[in-house]
């Protein structure tokens, strides 16, 4: 069971108060995109063992979207942060590194932030 803190209203609750929204920080490919990039945007997702970034919505609460950084193996939540950002903020990366020494955003997934 995940316990998340909504950064929009400050409530800390278990996951049944929230709704998962899939992988975070996708680049929205649109008019003019190559077929490969458009296909990747629609269908291709990271499936990391360990640190992951996801979108969540406080569906049974304030209704807002936010981001969460968590571990897919242990369900540890490293932190939650604003939905209005295109990459994990430094303070979240620092929290992850503190718990997973040697971890680097550069190595996440297929190298989006490399």
């Amino acid at each position, binding site marked *: 069971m995940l316990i998340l803190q909504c950064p*929009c*209203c*400050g*409530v800390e*609750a*278990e996951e*049944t*108060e929230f709704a998962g929204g899939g992988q975070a920080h996708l680049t929205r490919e649109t008019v003019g995109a190559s077929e490969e990039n458009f296909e990747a945007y629609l269908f291709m997702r990271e499936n990391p063992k360990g640190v992951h970034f996801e979108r969540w919505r406080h*569906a*049974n*609460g*304030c*209704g*807002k979207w936010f981001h969460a950084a968590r571990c897919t193996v242990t369900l540890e939540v490293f932190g939650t942060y604003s939905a209005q950002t295109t990459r994990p903020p430094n303070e979240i990366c620092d929290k992850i590194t503190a718990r997973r020494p040697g971890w680097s955003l550069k190595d996440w997934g297929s190298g989006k932030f490399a």
Partner: protein
Amino acid sequence: MSDAISALDGARSEGSAVVEELGLRGMITLRGDLSSKTVAAAVKNLTGLNLPQQRMCNSRAAYGVAWMSPDELLVMIPYGEAEAATAKIAGALAKEHALVVNVSDARAVFAIRGAGAREVLAKLAPVDLSKERFEPGQFRRTRLAQVPAAFWLRDPDRFELICFRSVAQYVFDLLKTSAAPGAEVGFL
């Protein structure tokens, strides 16, 4: 015009807590900039209440203002005043980026009171309802079993709860079952 009645017409049940449907209540959803003085003034004008802090509900007699989200308030007033009040707030906020809607008929309101009230709710919602963590005035949007709901601690042993009118019977049955004699957990 026909007489409006609430979903359960004042249904009541007594167990480890008294569960009671409170009849019709005027409710206005107000979305806008909660730091705006115009918004605060419009709400105060109507209810006599200041805007609540994050996750709080200010109450006075039949009036209330609840913090719903960083850009949303729920204004509670007597049912008969809702229509005129909605127009009044909307008028006051005409120059603001705001939304004002009368949602009175979309909701049901319950009171849960008595010594067992905290436990009756704690069995149904993923919320820490211990005395240290949930204090008078606190307001919480959450779920009750399978449906969205919001409740606040109006007085030390009295919660008020709102849900959608369409699930009023389901919510009443949940609360009644949770408060059934013999179903006490005795933890809170």
